């Protein structure tokens, strides 16, 4: 299975190479290559989902050929390994990536017109990066995939994007790269701390080993988080820099609306659906699992950023007339919920946050796809000139309403399943934060209804005078129906059968909370020792002064 996992990760890469290297591919051939590649990859993803054992906490499908440490030797010295594996958290994001890649190939079925082969090649390249990231069990491998995803998306926005694409792509690339480099330092710092202070001075890059090891290192300083310069807090902040930009949390979100508005629909779907999850996933894997004490100490700070982001994102979304920009700002709001759930550091919160990550990928992906369908036909996303699409596209209107309701957390659809545990967990930690977040939920329903009201309901309004004959706009195609339909099915599944999903997330979330507890216990011990010591300590200080 380990080999198959590696193959699944690189299958889209093979497809991408075929698209680039095969000569004279026309539109028809290149899009069918892309579709089949992504479908086969998705089939493999489902295979992993089916053979995933719910009650195992260790990463699955990970055993290397030598039976020893995970994966295959890569850099040799030091022992950075090409190690892949999936646990209850990453399996869902892995499958989500597979699904959304198929969706994004489908929605750009007719849209991509120039350099089609290259367009799909970049989409598949992005898929490889994302699949590899979620499966990576080695910090360096994780980081390589983390940064690698920038390249295909950079070109996707830059070449096929809207009018302001150059600025958007540069801004996106540099902003996320700058954060990513600081994250790299945080990753190095974690490895070095583990090497210098763990019993036996083990140099390891394996994520599970580091997570376990950092809870048992023999360095009192590590468990003290009472000042801004304590090592754990500093490392937390280094790691946080890249992930917070990627999520994006409130003050670091400025690249997102620009990138979303300029990106082609397929790029937007993968960007919102999966790429933003990289940040939250990194927060889980690194910030929560490896520096949990700092995460707890900084809870007020994190929660404040999240709540401000939730409300600010919702209010800004309310003020938009561009549909895509509205959905983009709604992402800021929704991802705030995800991080809020994570920051609560309880099993409930992590469960909710993981499922909410999947939810957000599905509903936002669907909303972007709906907006993309309209944009492809009318070349505008302005709700002042475009609206009442029910009249012309009843099927699209159904999906539009359906995914908006899912996004607005209507019970029975998926959003509710994610947001409820998040709010419950937050209430347990800090009721006031929860109250703030609930305001964001109300606003969320508000802007989504505004979106529906203006874009779907009412009399048909079509932009005038852009040179298109509106009587003959392309009808809603089978490919768009297939894309939106598959998303809608999963949205409903999560809504009515959440236990299927939770049962696989729960063991991994429980494992995470156990790690947190272990670090807490170590911190208590250190604090107890410090409390017992002061008399002796002051004596030595006095005697040193006297000398």
């Amino acid at each position: 299975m380990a080999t198959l996992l590696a193959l699944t990760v690189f299958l889209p890469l093979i497809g991408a190479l075929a698209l680039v290297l095969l000569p004279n591919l026309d539109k028809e051939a290149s899009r069918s290559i892309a579709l089949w590649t992504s479908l086969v990859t998705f089939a493999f993803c489902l295979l992993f989902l089916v053979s995933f054992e719910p009650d195992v906490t260790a990463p699955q499908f990970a055993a290397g050929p030598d039976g020893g440490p995970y994966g295959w030797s890569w850099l040799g010295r030091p022992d950075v390994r090409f190690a892949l594996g999936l646990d209850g958290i990453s399996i869902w994001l892995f499958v989500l990536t597979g699904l959304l890649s198929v969706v994004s190939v489908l929605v750009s079925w007719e849209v991509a017109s120039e350099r089609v082969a290259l367009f799909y090649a970049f989409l598949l390249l992005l898929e490889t990066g994302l699949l590899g990231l979620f499966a990576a069990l080695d910090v360096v491998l994780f980081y390589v995939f983390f940064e690698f995803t920038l390249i295909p998306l950079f070109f996707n926005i830059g070449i096929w994007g809207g009018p302001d694409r150059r600025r958007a792509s540069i801004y996106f690339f540099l902003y996320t790269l700058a954060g990513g480099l600081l994250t790299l330092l945080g990753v190095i710092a974690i490895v070095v701390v583990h090497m210098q202070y763990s019993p036996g001075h083990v140099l390891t890059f394996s994520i599970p080993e580091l997570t376990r090891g950092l809870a048992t290192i023999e360095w009192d300083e590590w468990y003290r988080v009472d000042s801004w310069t304590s090592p754990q807090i500093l490392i937390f902040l280094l790691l946080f820099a890249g992930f917070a930009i990627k999520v994006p949390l409130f003050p670091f979100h400025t690249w997102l609306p620009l990138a979303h508005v300029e990106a082609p629909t397929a790029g937007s779907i993968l960007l919102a659906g999966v790429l933003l999850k990289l940040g939250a996933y990194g927060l889980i894997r690194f910030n929560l699992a490896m520096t949990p004490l700092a995460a707890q100490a900084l809870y007020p700070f994190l929660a404040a950023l999240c709540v401000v982001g939730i409300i600010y994102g919702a209010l800004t979304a309310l003020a938009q007339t561009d549909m895509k920009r509205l959905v983009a700002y709604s992402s800021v709001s929704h991802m705030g919920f995800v991080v809020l759930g994570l920051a609560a550091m309880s099993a409930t919160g992590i469960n909710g946050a993981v499922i909410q990550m999947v939810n957000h990928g599905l509903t936002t992906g669907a909303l972007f796809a709906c907006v993309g369908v309209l944009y492809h036909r009318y070349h505008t996303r302005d709700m002042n000139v475009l609206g009442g699409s029910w009249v012309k596209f009843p099927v699209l209107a159904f999906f539009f309403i359906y995914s908006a309701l899912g996004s607005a957390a209507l019970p029975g659809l998926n959003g509710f399943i994610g947001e409820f545990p998040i709010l419950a967990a937050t209430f347990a930690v800090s009721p006031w934060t929860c109250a703030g977040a609930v305001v964001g939920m109300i606003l969320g329903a508000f802007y989504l209804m505004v979106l529906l009201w203006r874009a779907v309901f009412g009399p048909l309004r079509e932009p005038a005078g852009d040179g298109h004959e509106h009587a003959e706009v392309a009808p809603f195609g089978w490919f768009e129906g297939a894309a939106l339909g598959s998303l809608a099915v999963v949205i409903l599944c999560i809504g009515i059968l959440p236990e299927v999903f939770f049962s696989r997330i729960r063991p991994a979330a429980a494992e995470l909370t156990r790690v947190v507890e272990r670090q807490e216990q170590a911190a208590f011990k250190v604090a107890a020792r410090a409390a017992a010591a002061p008399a002796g300590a002051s004596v030595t200080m006095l005697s040193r002064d006297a000398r």
Partner: protein
Amino acid sequence: MTPEQAYQTVQQTLYVLAPEILLVAVAIVMMTASPFVKVARKHWCALAAAALAAAVMVLSATRHVDPDVYAASAINDAFSFYVRLFVLLSGFIMLGLAHREPPEGRAAEFFGSFLMLEAGTMLTASSNDLILLFVGLELVSIPTYLWLYLSRRSAATREATTKYFFLSIFASALTLYGMTFLYGAAGTTNLKALGALTASSIPYFPNMSLGILAVVFVMGGLCFRIAAVPLHFYAPDVYQASPLPVTAMLSWVPKVVGSAAMIRVLTAVLASRQMGDPLVHKVVILCWIIAVATMTLGNMVGLLQTDLKRLLAYSSIAHAGYIMVGITAAFAGGEKGIAFYHGVEAVLFYLVAYAFMTLGAFGLIQALQTRDGRPATSIYDLSGAGWSNRIPAFGLTICLLSLLGFPPMAGFLGKFQIFSAAFAAVEGPEAFSLQLLAVIGMLNAAVGAFYYLRIIVLMYLGEPAEPLTAVGGWPVALATATCAVMSILVTIASEPISRACHEAAVASNARPAAAIELPPPGTATAAVAPPAIRVARD
């Protein structure tokens, strides 16, 4: 030392230096013969390439010659073997880039001086003696003056050569001056013996004030070679005025020479001392300042450049800064710090990555010419090249991403190693300054990303400019393709290179058991006559 031992040492040293001797001999033959025989340029180039190939073979054949390190002036440890091997291999790439550069009449001198500067680089890497090391440095400098002026005799190259000449002389003088202090303090020019003395418990050695003078001057001179602050300012002007193959050479050979010399003379000699030692502490502060100033200056000024060569010149300065981070880590870590990446190891790996990315970038820019035969000079000349010249532009993109330090390119792994080395060099509260250095380095890398990215953006997203044609023939194509492919391959299959760098780093710091035994400090004052110092061999 008996005469037999002396004879043996000389013999073995000559074996060790056989590749250099071969290269210089071929160069002398070429230069002497050129007025009398009429040989086409490409044949001179082929002869030079054959000499390089022969040198590789000689180098491999003499792999196991191992002269006594405390007597011989050249040693054959892993450091000298791998650095020399890589310098020779990179020589093929540079020859490929430069094969059409000199005019027919001056080709023999041009390729001859190239062989000499290759020999000088190798000599520096294998030297175990201050004097031989200095000879190696000069054997690089003097042919470089020729290279700068031989290929094109214009006012611009004359100015560049003059600038480089005077500063280079100045830098050599600084280095030599620093070396005199080292010699004065220790009374020996043998580098391993210097290292052994430093490791010994002789009191007051290395003398604090003499030691810091030596380090400051040697470092000052070598900063010129690697284009680090404060002797960096020649780089943009000289790069801009020189033809591209010469610029490519200038961005790579002096860097490897300077770094190898720093490792041989400074970090290896001080390797036995840790951060706690007052001298090492001061040296670390010095290197810290150089590293931060170099990185920051290179990246900040690089942001403003639109001329390709000036941009790459500032990029080269910035990369000198990253190398200095590795050197700082090497000083701070001393012999320890081998568990993760050692500073020397990281520097060597970075140099390998840097060779491919910088030679590739220069080579591809050289290959892309406008219709009237003018190479692309401004970054705007490359606008739209991503669609009109797909393959060269793709290669250039790989090299630029590697310079930017983007995974999975070679430059990423280089930066990863450098900053890991800085992070892991020391433990405890003293680690903070080095960690801060790594943070500053990363922020710099983020700033520097902009100017590399700008070229990529122009190539793929810019309005098509005047169409470019790819020129240069198969040697340039092969050389640049090697660079681009290796820029990716170095990361994917890095194990052999990593291992070589590790062995080299360990070897550079290693000293064969040499215990200079002194009585413990308490009895030393009581003893009337100091006991004879015994240097144990093996």
